[in-house]
């Protein structure tokens, strides 16, 4: 009798397993969805993930759980997503670093972006602003570039770490403007801001939302922004492209994307892409994202893939130059 029961149970399991792929398309999601974020709770990438997963849970009819796995500039989040992959309910959001520059900067990330990651959609982009102390003599970008060009490393700038978006953007800027600046790595925008206001360093590229409160308080000034158009959160800051000797197509943006492990059912990716596209088209969601410095920028999975390839190449060239300069 016991044997019979076990046999029947095994049979039932086999039938259920065989039916799984079909169910994945029709009834997905059948369980809570997990979204891995490589940054701690309360950080900007985490807040972004929570803004979009809340409406996503409503649309999918299943809870969406944000899993914070902070560390190594977001790489650990991607790694943990890949380790947990295989149930069809595991995804991640990540900033550009782990998909574009981490392979160059780290000994080993433990994954291959092209082979292991399936792009779902770009979520949002964020330009950086060049911020200086309001006590400094720099009134505009031209004045800054002139001062920086007086002699090599005449000016020092702060970033949030070697190979960070802030560091590479500054190096790209310096290269295009034909100057060289002294790089001082910090670990957070809070430290960079303190150092700029204390007059210890001259400038820093930072997220508009990190600079704005200090600009409003009269402690800092923003000389330019790295996006192709002015940014709604800081409409008065002039676009850098075409100014102070920079090319007209100068553009450097950080971004945040929704990704899946490779091998995820294409129908599921399609569904997620559609839902997220609609969520990001909602003006309320856009406003919430803008408040933390992100501009909604949904697209197709192919768009994201293209962006990954293009940025890997662009930042790779910058890293080459930085390494050659050392």
């Amino acid at each position: 009798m016991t044997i019979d029961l076990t046999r029947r149970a095994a049979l039932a399991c086999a039938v259920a397993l065989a039916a799984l792929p079909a169910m994945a398309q029709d009834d997905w999601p059948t369980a809570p969805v997990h979204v891995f974020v490589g940054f701690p709770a309360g950080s900007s990438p985490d807040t972004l993930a929570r803004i979009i997963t809340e409406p996503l849970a409503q649309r999918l009819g299943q809870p969406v759980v944000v899993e914070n796995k902070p560390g190594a500039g977001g790489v650990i989040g991607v790694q943990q997503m890949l380790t947990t992959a295989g149930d069809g309910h595991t995804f991640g959001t990540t900033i550009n670093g782990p998909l574009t520059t981490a392979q160059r900067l780290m000994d080993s990330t433990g994954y291959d972006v092209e082979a292991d990651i399936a792009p779902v959609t770009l979520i949002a982009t964020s330009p950086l602003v060049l911020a200086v102390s309001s006590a400094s003599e720099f009134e505009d970008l031209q004045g800054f570039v002139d001062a920086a060009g007086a002699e090599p490393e005449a000016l020092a700038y702060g970033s949030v770490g070697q190979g960070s978006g802030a560091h590479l953007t500054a190096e790209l800027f310096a290269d295009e403007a034909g100057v060289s600046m002294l790089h001082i790595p910090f670990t957070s925008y809070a430290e960079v801001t303190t150092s700029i206001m204390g007059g210890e360093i001259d400038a820093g590229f930072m997220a508009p939302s990190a600079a704005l409160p200090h600009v409003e308080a009269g402690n800092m000034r923003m000389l330019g922004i790295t996006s192709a158009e002015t940014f709604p959160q800081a409409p008065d800051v002039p676009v850098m492209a075409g100014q102070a000797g920079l090319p007209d197509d100068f553009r450097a943006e950080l971004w945040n994307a929704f990704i899946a492990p490779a091998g995820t059912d294409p129908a599921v990716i399609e569904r997620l892409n559609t839902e997220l596209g609609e969520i990001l088209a909602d003006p309320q969601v856009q406003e919430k994202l803008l408040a933390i410095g992100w501009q909604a920028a949904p697209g197709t999975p192919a768009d994201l893939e293209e962006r990954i390839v293009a940025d890997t190449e662009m930042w790779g060239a910058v890293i080459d130059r930085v390494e050659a300069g050392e």
Partner: protein
Amino acid sequence: MTTWEGLLYGIGFALQPGVLVYCVLGVVLGTFVGVLPGIGAMAAISLLLPVTYYITPEAALIMLAGVYYGAQYGGAVASILMRLPGTPQSAVTALDGYPMVREGRTGVALFAAMASSFAGSVIGIAVLVMLAGWLSTAATAFGAADYAAMMILGLVAASTIGTGQFAKGFAMVTLGLLLGCVGTDVNSGVQRFTFGQTELLDGINLVALAMGLFGVAEVVANVQDPDRQGVVERIGFRRMLPAWADLRQMGWPTLRGGALGSFFGALPGTGSTLSSFLSYAMERRVARRPERFGKGAIEGVAGPESANNAAAITAFVPTLTLGIPGDPIMALMLGALVIHGIQPGPLMLEARPEMFWGLVASFGIGNLLLLILNLPLIGIWVAMLRIPFRWLYPAILVFVCLGVYSVRGLTFDIVAVAAIGLAGYLLALAAFSPALLLLGFVLGPLIETNLRRALLISRGDPMVFLERPISAVFVVATIALLLLSLWQAWRQRRNARADRREAA
């Protein structure tokens, strides 16, 4: 609004039932997560973050702040009772708190911790209210060179806290400094001693190190020695009260600790761990009979506890006045405000006075609640020691694992805490001081990063350490301290020789 108007307004705001309830919730929760080894304010605040979406931003901030400073009270309890620091800040409290327990003075030790925690918080609040403006300028006035010089002074001053041989203490500080090198070097981006493990890129987890060295090592030591059951006392309220002599011994250390903590708490990035170490070192240095330290000196409990609570309060100065979070927990709290659409920054005091003054007033109310809550709890904590070790220790190990996992959610850290625990046990067998290792670990990376950053900014000119006035003061103080120590050692040896000659 003047300071007094603001404060009165804040008290009125914080006493509203709808706000007060969150303050109570925060401090109670903070006490409990503080007691649980390894589970600190960071984990509790992360878990509470989604809850804050549903309450007003003022109530949210008051609740999260309550967890933050409440954890400082709870942290001392486990540290004193079982030599298991509930939080890394309270590791120092174990040095003299635990010996007091073994002497059968558990009640007095816990009372001393609670009373000095409260006094330290009051000092912190007074400093916050009166000197917030001045302290916020200090935060931007400190450059990399100043931080480096200050930390070196801290390292030199605190290196004396170990009891016993100089060589052993030196070895532990050095080992701590070396362990602090693990991870990505901030200045060059080079990965050091990571052995290809991504989990080590941000360094060894501080909580794993503290829990392994103190907690796990202590559990292993007790398993090996089943007779080592602590002295369990039945205490009434009277036994808990310290004698007049105890109170007198606590007075100055509490005041000094509070002042020290207030200052270090307000500097972004230095934090309360450093201030409790420095307070302990200072008490040992000014004590008439320093040999009592490590054997149950009440000053060694009162000073550091006062310091870390004062620091927990003034840590809000850069956060509230400059919008610059001093540590990851502060950053997390600011994140909670951002979710509500409030951009914390220098203008917050003017734009949202109810938030600033309400929070400040809630510090006072919350600390009073903590004192009222914790004094009766002392009896319950002491009763915990009566739980048979075969139940207590497995439970402690479970909480240690949970706590370490809660920091980053990585199983790697659980393996790490087990390995560090084994190493900690071996070190304890050979009578090495784990506190000094922790000190080197905390200060090492800060000193290295700031020293190299200062030299980068000065384009390689070492004179920057003497040209900047703040840094120069610290450098001179460090040299003076070293000379003083050498002179004391020389005098001691001469006296010992003279004694021997007389005896002969």
